[in-house]
């Protein structure tokens, strides 16, 4: 604290300047510029075709392709994130106890996060194959008919949720584990002496103590899921998300409009709506969590 009073009044500004300059030029400026583009009729080849005001946004509200993509994105988000975070909490609780091979399991949990998203989307694309996929084969051995993971809408959502969970389960588990390590051990000890079961300790000590971390992971997951792109693109081998767009996400639609249909202005409008949705969802989460905290 006292340190800054010494030599060079400008030193701290020099130290933080590179972050703000680089971030400003390459992240903040494009985000703001995106808004400018979204108010214009803009194409990659023709450039700026003139100011159109809110027309792109107005069109978006009536565009069935957009609502379809939004529904897909939200559905995959719910199917993926809710079970994933619950499972991550339980796993972290197990890893937080003294168990055998603790170090091994901790490292193993995060392995999927290390691997390339593109590589694994290709692997999962095969695992979820209709005719030769291992998952259908496994289902067959227990008497379930093969599922067409790509054309059936709900099945395609589930397949994508599995890919997402595979990648992020371990990451969230580790974040929860880190938070759980800060809970004082004597809380559990005195609860044990009072005769509280493990399950009860989990609900009444662990969960309340890691609530801020849960909020953090929910927001991070929201940001990631609203931008879901790589898995569905590789799953569908293009930006369409299936012949009926049954699993086309908003990020895919944005990309499709901007690149293939050369409609930059509309793509930018979609991007801003996604950004606004992320902010709104994050705020709802914050309010929701603080409401729970106030009630308990």
């Amino acid at each position, binding site marked *: 604290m006292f340190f800054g009073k010494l030599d060079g009044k400008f030193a701290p500004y020099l130290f933080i300047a590179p*972050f703000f300059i680089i971030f400003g030029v390459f992240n903040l400026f*494009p985000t703001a510029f995106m808004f400018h583009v979204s108010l214009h009729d803009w194409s990659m080849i023709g450039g700026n075709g003139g100011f159109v005001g809110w027309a792109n946004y107005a069109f978006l509200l009536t565009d069935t392709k957009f609502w379809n993509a939004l529904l897909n994105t939200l559905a995959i988000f719910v199917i993926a994130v809710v079970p994933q975070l619950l499972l991550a909490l339980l796993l972290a609780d197990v890893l937080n106890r003294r168990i055998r091979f603790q170090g091994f399991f901790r490292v193993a949990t995060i392995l*999927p996060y290390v691997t390339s998203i593109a*590589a694994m989307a290709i692997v999962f694309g095969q695992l979820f194959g209709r005719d030769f996929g291992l998952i259908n084969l496994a289902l067959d051995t227990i008497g379930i008919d093969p599922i067409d993971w790509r054309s059936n809408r709900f099945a395609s959502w589930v397949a994508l949720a599995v890919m997402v969970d595979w990648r992020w389960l371990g990451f969230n588990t580790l974040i929860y584990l880190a938070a759980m390590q*800060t809970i004082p051990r004597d809380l559990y000890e005195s609860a044990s002496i009072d005769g509280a079961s493990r399950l009860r300790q989990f609900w009444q000590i662990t969960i309340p103590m890691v609530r801020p971390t849960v909020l953090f992971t929910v927001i991070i997951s929201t940001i990631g899921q609203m931008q879901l792109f790589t898995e569905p693109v590789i799953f569908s081998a293009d930006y369409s998300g299936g012949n009926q767009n049954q699993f086309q996400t908003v990020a895919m639609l*944005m990309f499709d409009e*901007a690149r293939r249909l050369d409609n930059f202005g509309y793509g930018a409008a979609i991007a801003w709506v996604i950004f606004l949705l992320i902010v709104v969802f994050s705020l709802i989460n914050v309010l929701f969590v603080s409401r729970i905290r106030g009630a308990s």
Partner: protein
Amino acid sequence: MALSLVFLFSAFPLYWLVVVATRGNEAIAQRPPALLPGREFAENIVRTLENPAANFVQGLVNSAIVATATAVSVVFFCSLAGFALAKMRFRGRNIATLAIIVTMMIPIQMAIVPMLIMMDAFDWRGDLRAVIAPFMVTGFGVFLMRQYAQQGVPNELLESARLDGCSNLRTFWSVVVPQLRPAMIVLGMLTFMQNWNEFIWPIAVLGPDNPTVQVSINNLNQGYTSDFALMFTGATFATLPLLLVFVVFGRRLIGGIMEGAIKG
């Protein structure tokens, strides 16, 4: 028991990636599919490397350059800013900290459209600068380093450096950096992984002539007939370097993440 199931769930797709990469296309098409590694890895590697659409060697080299450059840059600039925010007193410090936390909420991929226009204006299309520059700093990095610096750099050390007449930059270099080293390694590894695996932006801005390894994989996936053995080999190729790094440093990385959370 539950842990072993989760471990299987985590490990199986990776294992199967290697199985197919060491066999051929028949490993996927046969019923039941092959579950043990085969002997065709060398052959598949040669085919992958020779595939003109993938430009795989260039992809690997480019990814190594991009991931290293961004990791070094993020570690340097973010520790500098994190240290200033944690340990130096100046006007606007709180606002700057808040601003950095808010920037973490901006999803950079959403700005892809104007970023492309911008890269056209710079004439950086197809150039590695286009995939390095936007990732040279991260809000997450500054936040992480600030948390570490607050706890991990004792004020007494800074005080004695001051008494010895060190300038701010000198203090940073000789006193702060050694103290922050564990956190810097963690941040460096996370950044390296993230940029090695970056997918959307390189595909959008780099052409097939100058790909990163993820673009190469994607190029193997294009076309009417998919050669899965080739794609799986390429994917194994893209994953192995990270897996190796992780097996060697994994414990340290996890230890670092946990320590940071505890201190934060």
